[in-house]
């Protein structure tokens, strides 16, 4: 925080926005100084996304004032906000998949020569921006849609910086990045801070906030709660501000399962397309087994292979002691096999967004709810009501569109949908990514309860605390195979990290899988 920093660069007062009957924002205020990083905290549904959209010109507030550099401003379109010097890196990327990286970076502010686009200069600017964000490996002529998500996110950041904004807003901008990328982005953000940029940072990852933020503001239920300097509140206190009730960061106690009898799921020598190599694993009923390791070592593909979504899978899979050929998700979910997969991308792979909450919840179990092809509405309603109560899904009735729910509640709908099929084995692909703290807790409790009822749970997570807190055992993936199995006293963050990096130390047990 430099001298003369008393007057905030960006000041927002009394902003309100309603969507029909839902109050998205009510009389919120916010201010951010130049040369500082200001974290914006709040659960999903707290109004952060709406607030960001107002600042970046995507939606218009009904009431309120925005003052930028001492001048009142209003942004009827995103172009106007960009023109005024506010650049936003959206959680849902604003990239054009068919256009090249260079096109995307320059699209808002093209470089011209004789009236036409100067592709050489644009390419040079793209290369500069990419180098700045640590994406030198990204080729400017590559079509953006073909890049992996982590590279796309870097391009999105490069694009936001290309206009040399005065205010930079990052909305969960690091969620798909590898740890190395995140480190580079953080260095960049700190550099931009010393250069005088005002940065608004939204993230659910407390350690990121702790490292970056100078100040923090909390929103809850569309209202402004408090602003405080970073480091002056404990993590638990912050979470309590966000969820408005008492909170403890402890995980539900582990069951101490004994692994005996026929495993619910037994995998032997599973391989696929060079990405999965000779994986063997057993999961017993009532066990919660975690998949750990660095991003991209095959964990997601392993779960997809178990669920029948991959072609050309080799090896054997046994469900409840009987060999199974799982050719499609439809087969996987059949009562004989009883598998369920909570997918990675809930918006595209887990929900039918234009449809109602009711329709989404009953989809997987539709056969059990219908007789001779007709859906039994009464049975459906009874089961759904019970489910919604059990999962505490907050929605405007069951007949509202599921797209209107917050991320956490949407994830509960996805889980609820699969619970209705009464699965034997539940697979989860990074289920708490981008979910607020309160809902995460509920999901952990739910998984623990499922295990107690005898369901086998196999669960990939990028969060070490989660793996340690929720799982009986953790299989570390490295290069498409299980390199190490950790359990009991060995299951510590240090060992997780070490195993993920495939470091070996004296006296450790070699990778003995099915044991």
């Amino acid at each position, binding site marked *: 925080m430099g001298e003369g920093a008393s007057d905030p660069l960006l000041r927002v007062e009394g902003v309100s926005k309603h969507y029909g009957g839902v109050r998205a924002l009510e009389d919120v205020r916010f201010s951010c100084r130049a040369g500082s990083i200001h974290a914006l905290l709040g659960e999903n549904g707290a109004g952060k996304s709406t607030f960001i959209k107002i600042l970046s010109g995507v939606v218009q507030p009904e009431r309120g004032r925005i003052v930028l550099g001492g001048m009142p401003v209003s942004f009827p379109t995103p172009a106007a906000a960009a*023109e005024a010097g506010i650049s936003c890196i959206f959680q849902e990327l604003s*990239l054009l998949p068919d*256009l090249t990286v260079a096109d*995307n970076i320059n699209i*808002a502010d093209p470089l011209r020569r004789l009236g*036409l*686009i100067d592709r050489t200069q644009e390419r040079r600017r793209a290369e500069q921006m990419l180098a700045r964000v640590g994406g030198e490996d990204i080729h400017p002529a590559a*079509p953006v849609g073909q890049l992996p998500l982590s590279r796309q996110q870097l391009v999105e950041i490069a694009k936001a910086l290309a206009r040399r904004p005065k205010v930079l807003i990052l909305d969960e901008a690091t969620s798909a990045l590898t740890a190395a990328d995140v480190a580079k982005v953080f260095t960049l953000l700190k550099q931009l801070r010393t250069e005088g940029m005002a940065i608004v940072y939204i993230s659910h990852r407390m350690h990121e906030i702790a490292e970056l933020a100078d100040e923090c503001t909390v929103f809850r239920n569309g209202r402004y709660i408090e602003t405080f300097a970073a480091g002056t509140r404990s993590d638990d206190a912050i979470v309590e501000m966000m969820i408005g009730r008492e909170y403890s960061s402890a995980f539900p106690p582990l069951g101490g399962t004994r692994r005996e009898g026929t495993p619910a799921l037994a995998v032997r020598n599973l391989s696929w397309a060079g990405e999965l190599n000779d994986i063997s694993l057993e999961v017993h009923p009532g066990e919660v087994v975690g998949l750990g390791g660095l991003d991209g070592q095959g964990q997601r593909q392993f779960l997809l292979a178990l669920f029948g979504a*991959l072609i050309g899978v080799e090896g054997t899979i046994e469900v409840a002691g009987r060999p199974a050929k799982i050719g499609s998700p439809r087969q996987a979910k059949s009562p004989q096999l009883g598998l369920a997969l909570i997918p990675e991308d809930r918006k595209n792979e887990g929900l039918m967004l234009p449809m109602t909450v009711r329709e989404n919840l009953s989809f997987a179990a539709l056969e059990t709810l219908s007789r001779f092809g007709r859906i039994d509405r009464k049975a459906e309603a009874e089961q759904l009501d019970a489910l919604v109560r059990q999962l505490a899904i907050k929605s405007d009735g069951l007949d509202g569109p599921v797209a209107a729910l917050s991320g956490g509640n949407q994830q509960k709908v996805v889980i609820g949908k699969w619970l209705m099929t009464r699965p034997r084995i539940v697979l989860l692909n990074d289920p708490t990514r981008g979910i607020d703290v309160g809902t995460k807790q509920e999901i952990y409790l739910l998984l623990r309860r499922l295990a107690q009822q005898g369901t086998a749970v196999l669960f990939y997570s990028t969060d070490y605390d989660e793996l340690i807190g929720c799982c009986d055992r953790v299989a570390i993936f490295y290069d498409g195979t299980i390199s190490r199995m950790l359990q009991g006293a060995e299951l510590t963050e240090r060992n997780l990290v070490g195993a993920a990096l495939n470091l070996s130390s004296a006296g450790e047990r070699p990778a003995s899988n099915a044991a």
Partner: protein
Amino acid sequence: MTVGGARDRNWRYRLAAQRGALAAAAIFAIMFAVYGAAQPTGLSSDVVNTAANKGALLALVAMAQTVPVLTGGLDLSVGMIFMLTNCLASVIVTGSPVMTILGIAGVLAAGLACGLVNGLIVVYGRLQPLIATLATSAIYFGIALALRPQPGGDVNGDFADLMTRSTYGVPSSVVLIVAAVVLIWMPYRNSTLGRAAYAVGSSEQAAYMSGVPIARAKLCAYTLAGLFAAVGGLLLTCLTYSGEARAALGGDYTLNSIAALVIGGTSLFGGSGGVVGSVFGAFVMRTVGDLLVVFNINPVLQPLFVGVVLLFAVSLGSLRLLRVRNKLDLYR
């Protein structure tokens, strides 16, 4: 990455982007070679000229269709703008050289106007392009019919001759297509509005969040479509020395332009492709008809054969599906 390596990757990306157009060009080259070989007199100047003239008409209408499709829309009225400008040309592109030139300008302006009307309705009326252009196609046909209730009219003989002859074996219609590509398409493609059109077709929502001028991009696209269709109408008048408002012909050209565009590798979802591919796609479709004549196959079967070629060309694009290993990729 070494500088040499980067340049090498650059070429590979550029090549991959043009895949559709190159495939269409290759198909056309093969078909035309077969056609030429089967001619009793070989590839004489006359043979090439006739083939070029017929193909150029569809090529121009296909170019017209391509631009709105790039924005993720569709223009069902291109065939009727083609008819309207044909009828108009048969009325005003006559007389002294000065009158002729003014007439040509008038025809092109009419095409631009029709395209602009389409654009205004789609952008400000917020109607789906399919519906909007379906409606305007009826209007344009009505105007064409009003201009030429009976087939007739005339066109300046020198101008017509210039447009339909061959000079040193190069048909003027081919020169016209090349000129349209180089003088109209390429500057457009390299302009901000041209890139904006691709952006809108790729993801209109992302384009909006990126501050792309969506309204202007769409307006420009539909207007340009009108211009290309008008050039086609002019060429038709030169070939037939008359104007005729035939609904079936206009409808045929519209549908065939969509087929030509698909064969040429432009995506109907928008965001990728270009007019060069559509030009080759149009020539592929026309050559099929010629090949049928050469091999003495009943001309009634022509639509069937064109359909088969269309299916084949589209399937080529789907071949990559066979290599899919993760079923989720099929649905992305």
